[in-house]
């Protein structure tokens, strides 16, 4: 489907004590089914706001947000979100956290055994079968984030929304998870919208990179098509001229055209 997620002239403002703060303006974006799109920009540019509008957690102040031809009306499991800080419920085990989502989405049609099988499959997908019965405080940050990703994937969402999913992790863990995400995306053909501020992550994972201008009243600056063949491999791409060209283009946008003065 050519226009799976559609944002038309989306504007978002917040009423503050100092008056109206316009966060986003004239956001026009269409996302195809099976496409991986990154939103990149300096912090405070409203990229998470765009993601939250697609998720339905925020409503656009003006303009239209459509998913699968229907107006987005509140959040729902067909648009699963991987939150920046994993947002696992600490009182449920890894298994329990995923099962909660699986039950909600498939509980009406499927039996207990099927739901359990789905949950275990999701854990296996992110390589965490061994941590099945551990609670979030017993596992590392990277593992928590993987459970968060497994929870979202287990819902078989039409769109997977990721809000800086690897932002809180150390560099090595982040690279490992990115590599895993490349494999998962290649294997499942999911539609993914990802917020990031990591240039390598954007180039490595995306089909298109949406570069946003600085706020307030941020908007889409440029869109870069990344035509690197899949499956992608971090090591092979390290010496790839195209990879560096894409990387350079994003860096150029962020640090030349829309440089943000350090606060």
């Amino acid at each position, binding site marked *: 489907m050519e226009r799976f997620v559609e944002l038309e002239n989306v504007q978002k403002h917040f009423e503050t004590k100092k008056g109206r703060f316009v966060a986003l303006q004239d956001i026009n974006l269409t996302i195809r089914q099976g496409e991986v799109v990154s939103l990149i920009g300096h912090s405070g540019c409203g990229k998470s706001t765009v993601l939250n509008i697609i*998720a*339905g*957690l925020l409503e656009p102040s003006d303009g239209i947000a459509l998913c699968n031809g229907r107006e987005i009306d*509140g*959040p*729902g*499991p067909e*648009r*699963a*979100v991987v*939150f920046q*800080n994993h*947002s696992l*419920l*600490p*009182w*449920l085990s890894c298994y329990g956290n995923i099962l*909660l*989502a699986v039950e*909600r*989405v498939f509980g009406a049609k499927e039996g207990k055994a099927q739901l359990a099988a789905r949950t275990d499959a999701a854990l296996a997908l992110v390589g965490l079968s061994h941590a099945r019965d551990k*609670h*979030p*405080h*017993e596992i590392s940050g990277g593992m928590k984030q993987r459970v968060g990703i497994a929870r979202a994937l287990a819902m078989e969402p039409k769109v997977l929304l990721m809000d800086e999913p690897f932002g809180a992790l150390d560099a090595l863990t982040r690279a490992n998870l990115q590599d895993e995400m490349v494999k998962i995306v290649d294997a499942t053909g999911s539609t993914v919208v990802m917020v990031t501020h990591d240039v390598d992550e954007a180039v490595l994972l995306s089909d298109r990179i949406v570069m946003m201008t600085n706020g307030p009243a941020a908007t889409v600056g440029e869109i870069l098509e990344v035509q690197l063949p899949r499956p992608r491999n971090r090591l092979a791409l390290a010496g790839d001229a195209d990879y560096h060209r894409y990387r350079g283009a994003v860096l150029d946008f962020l640090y030349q055209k829309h440089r943000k003065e350090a606060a």
Partner: protein
Amino acid sequence: MSTAETFSPTLAAGPVATAARSARPRKRKTLLAAAPPSLQPLVRFIRWLVPPLLGLIAFVLLWSLVSQVSRGSLPGPVSTWASATELFADPFYQNGPNDQGIGWNILMSLGRVGVGFGLAAVVGIPLGFMIGRFDFLSRMTAPVISLLRPVSPLAWLPIGLLVFKAASPASIWVIFISSIWPMILNTAAGVRAVPQDYLNVARVLRLSEWKVFSVILLPAVLPHMLTGVRLAIGTAWLVIVAAEMLTGGVGLGFWVWDEWNNLNVEHILIAIFVVGLVGLALEQALVWLAKKASFGQGE
């Protein structure tokens, strides 16, 4: 201490205080290091035990000193201990309504606290949930709660006596009123402190109201709620002794007053220790429970 000498040139660059401070922990370490490895847990246990033990010994010494100085009008540790062994030899005797064993007194007081406290939990916790969830209700109840909360619980005793026309329900009423505030306020604060992330998970999953309550709100609020319960039981236990002194009947507070009338000061001292020990036990039990319910949060 050749190591200290080899390191001292580097330390000399810094201020003298740094050198002095870094020398102290090293000295302390040698004490532990001197013991063979098999004895180290024992050494650590002794170190853990010595300060509280010293404190208790100092307390008992001070007590006997004061007792000596007062020429026996305050009983010393020895006579109190003798009286206590006699008392606890038969804790559950019954010689009519005004002369019962210490066991009955403890149980009666605990029972009143249990009932008043339980009623306060039944009313206060749901009310706290609603106040935390609905801003309107919060602002509606705020002036009343702010006005009534600082009132000494004992001020409610006459109202209890007036309404219930009996001593025991009146003291239960006082316990109820003294323990309800921390439960309401802490539960409400807990509901307000539920991380938005968890609620966003609920929204994305479109969980039913019941699921939101049972899977997210209740477990998230539980640690706060238990803090409220712990504060409430602390206050309730403080208040029950005073309430029973005023109302009479059976109970630790009444017993203290009764023994004062009998001029049996040993028994008053025993009662003080018993009240302290029971309060400590209640507190520790709830601390343990709160730790169980925190699911690794705040660790």
